């Protein structure tokens, strides 16, 4: 019995790869195993190699693994592209239909399973993915009956026959492989028992979308784009029961400006996109900053520039999210590092947007937005809605004299003014992107200009966001501090454990608040290490530059970038750190 293994299924896009991974993972999740997934896919609907890799463990895991134990292949390309990941003694379960072969030098067992043939016997060739699931289950040693509930949930609408056929496909897959392996001497892949606890299994985008509903968002305006579309798709399903809706706009400029308009109207509203969409939104983000409208914007980073690598991992929007609007505005940029944080941070983003009356950008990356992971049950009691200095419906405002206006932009100690919503009696005021006075009237006077700029920019001086950095400080005099952002959290943690096992002293700081930058908190961490290695999925070292600019200590900083479209593996971070030490840089 083993405590953790990695399983991958691959083939041509459209062959049921996602569905195979999803079915197996849902069953394992319900049994209490911890899962961590990553989808490798292309920007096309049919064809092109695609795969899903899932790490299965009896203990919490928050990273994909370096290697692979079981590879399920629907075509030879899957074997050729992925077999190098297999451990010695790993297993390839391949469709017998294409006469699979193992590339030279790969020490894995090949089991040719008549996936297509069995599926055809069951009655539907496309059920080969379920036969493949069965084949895998034979190795993992979980019971076939555990699939009935999951398949019933999924196919209830399609009828009992479809459920039975799927069960039949899985059963036959199990039986075939059981017979085959009885004659082979292969390693035991039987999973050790899990703790059996109930947990959730979600992608970051699910958590953001659910967090938006929990955080009181009732409108969304968005334009479809990978890898953010799941957010709008979830909300269009769910918002109607709360009276709200999603508007699929004509472009991202409409998405952000509609979001601003709806927030001005008083409804918590969000938009979500990726790099190309965020580029289009930048002018309007400035409008939100200038007119002090709350709004929440999600940027699910993918490979850039331009169309770049639309379905691949990258963290190259960091500086654009901080600085891409013209002029200077208050803006909050937060970066969750797990699916769970995607949920709570989204709720908090809506609170901060209203409290500080400014745009809040939540930055994720593709691996976090689309990677499916086990999540501890989310806590209803932690949901809190705070609306800042919003004038409530009940409050009566003093009467305004003829054509006098409400001081919507009134100066105050903390720079934050009382916010009144259109429709409110005696609340009339003007809103404009032009520099304005306290009632919102255009006013270019130099004294007022400076005062207004100072008011807006000072709003974030007292910003309080929970855990601006995650610090895992194990040593007061560390050899290395590894710094990361977003989805690399677990990968860095795993690399760190290996480095520690080698006797190195390693600390980890994960940046969660990118703007305003948590300079002092990070500085404290950097002072405790000889070298600071910034791990980020980009070429130019954007987080590294931010640190250099805000904290300094340039001589300590080393940028470790990866920009080939794939997430970091623990081994890669481990190696980079080792090399750095061996070559005497520390």
């Amino acid at each position, binding site marked *: 019995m083993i405590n953790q293994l990695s399983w991958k299924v691959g083939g041509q896009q459209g062959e049921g790869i996602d569905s195979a991974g999803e079915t197996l993972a849902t069953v394992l999740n319900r049994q209490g195993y911890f899962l961590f997934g990553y989808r490798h896919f292309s920007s096309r609907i049919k064809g092109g190699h695609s795969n899903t890799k899932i790490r299965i463990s009896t203990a919490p895991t928050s990273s994909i693994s370096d290697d692979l134990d079981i590879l399920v292949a629907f075509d030879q390309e899957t074997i050729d592209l992925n077999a190098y990941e297999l451990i010695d003694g790993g297993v390839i379960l391949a469709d017998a239909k294409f006469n699979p072969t193992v590339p030279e030098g790969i020490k894995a067992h090949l089991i040719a399973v008549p996936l297509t043939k069995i599926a055809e016997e069951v009655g539907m060739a496309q059920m080969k993915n379920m036969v493949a699931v069965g084949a895998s289950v034979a190795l993992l040693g979980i019971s076939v009956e555990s699939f009935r509930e999951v398949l019933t949930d999924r196919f209830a609408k399609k009828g009992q026959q479809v459920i039975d056929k799927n069960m039949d496909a899985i059963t036959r897959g199990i039986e075939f492989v059981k017979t085959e392996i009885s004659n082979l001497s292969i390693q035991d892949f039987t999973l050790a028992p899990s703790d059996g606890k109930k947990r959730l299994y979600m992608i970051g985008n699910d958590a953001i979308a659910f967090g938006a509903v929990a955080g009181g968002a009732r409108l969304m305006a968005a334009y479809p784009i990978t890898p953010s579309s799941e957010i709008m798709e979830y909300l269009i399903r769910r918002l109607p029961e709360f009276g709200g809706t999603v508007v699929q706009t004509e472009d991202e*400029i409409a998405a952000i400006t509609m979001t601003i308009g709806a927030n*001005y109207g008083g*409804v918590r509203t969000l938009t979500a996109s990726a790099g190309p969409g965020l580029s289009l939104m930048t002018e309007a983000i400035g409008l939100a900053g200038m007119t002090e409208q709350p709004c929440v914007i999600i940027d699910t980073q993918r490979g850039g520039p331009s169309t770049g690598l639309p379905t691949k991992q990258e963290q190259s929007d960091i500086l654009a999210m901080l600085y891409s609007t013209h002029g200077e505005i208050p803006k909050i940029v937060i970066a969750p590092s797990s699916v769970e944080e995607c949920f709570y941070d989204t709720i908090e983003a809506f609170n901060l947007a209203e409290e500080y009356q400014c745009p809040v950008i939540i930055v994720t990356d593709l691996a976090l937005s689309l990677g499916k992971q086990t999540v501890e049950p989310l806590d209803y009691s932690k949901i809190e809605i705070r609306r800042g200095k919003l004038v409530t419906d009940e409050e009566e405002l003093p009467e305004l004299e003829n054509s006098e206006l409400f001081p919507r932009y009134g100066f105050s100690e903390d720079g934050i003014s009382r916010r009144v919503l*259109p429709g409110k009696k005696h609340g009339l005021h003007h809103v404009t992107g032009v520099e304005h006075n306290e009632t919102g*009237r255009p006013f270019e006077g130099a004294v007022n200009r400076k005062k207004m700029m100072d008011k807006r920019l000072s709003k974030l001086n007292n910003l309080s966001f929970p855990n601006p950095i995650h610090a895992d400080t194990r040593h007061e005099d560390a050899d290395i501090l590894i710094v990361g952002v977003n989805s690399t959290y677990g990968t860095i943690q795993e690399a760190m454990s290996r480095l520690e096992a080698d006797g190195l002293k390693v600390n980890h700081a994960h940046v969660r608040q990118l703007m305003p930058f948590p300079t002092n908190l990070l500085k404290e961490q950097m002072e405790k290490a000889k070298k600071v290695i910034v791990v980020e999925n980009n070429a130019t070292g954007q987080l590294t530059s931010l640190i250099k600019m805000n904290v300094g200590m340039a001589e300590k900083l080393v940028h470790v970038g990866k920009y080939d479209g794939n997430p970091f593996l623990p081994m890669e971070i481990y190696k980079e750190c080792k090399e750095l030490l061996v070559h005497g840089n520390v």
Partner: protein
Amino acid sequence: MATFKEFRNKVKPNWCPGCGDFTVLASMQRAFANLGKEPEEVAIVSGIGCSGRIAGYVNSYGFHGVHGRSLPIAQGLKLANRDLTVVASGGDGDGFAIGMGHTVHAIRRNVDITYIVMDNQIYGLTKGQTSPRSEMGFKTKSTPNGSIEAAISPMEMALTVGAGFVAQTVSSDLKGMTAIIEAGIKHKGFSLINVYSPCVTYNKINTYDWFKQNLTSLDEIEGYDPSNRGQAMQTLMEHSGLVTGIIYQNTERPSYEELIKGYKEEPLVKQDINLTEEQFDRLISEFA
């Protein structure tokens, strides 16, 4: 009930004397009063340009946004609070150049707002460049040899993309414009009103006199039926678009709000945003 004077404020418009936009401002104020609106029930969302300043000249809620984006801001606002009377406004550059994409899609979407375009066929605030409404051959600072691009025909365009309310008026006709704005606001769904609003400083061709000579009122066309889309299109083509009045109105087409699943009569902004624990548990079960 507020009078039209209560929709006035003390701000002196920074428009040139004689600018057509003054009539639009006065008509709007009268229309709001005639419809029994209170200042706080009205929100004007405008774009950038001389005309964009109009949001600041009405004693109501006003949002002066970015160039070309008054429509998505206005639609977002309306969806947030359907009790508000939302009027989007701007110039022909705002609506038919930089914001044309939004104009077409706002018409398709049919959110219940009114869009008033102050069409002066020139860029005024930037001191006289060609607009998408400038005729071929029109000489401006940016087209010293005359425009070599065809002018957009906004009314025909609106009919083509399925508008439910299409009207045109001119700044010399305060009464007619007021009536049209009232009708546009009352219309359930998106209403587009194009106003020939002469720029007295930079457009020396399309002047008040020019419009007087060239515009035909639909009232003068015997048997004109604004519910007949084919006739509307044909009439526009016969008159090169130079007509005034309600060109087309479809009272059957439901507004976007009427078609949103689960969208309530009570404005969204008034609804409780807290989830109950029961709702939370139900939502979370999807991920178990």
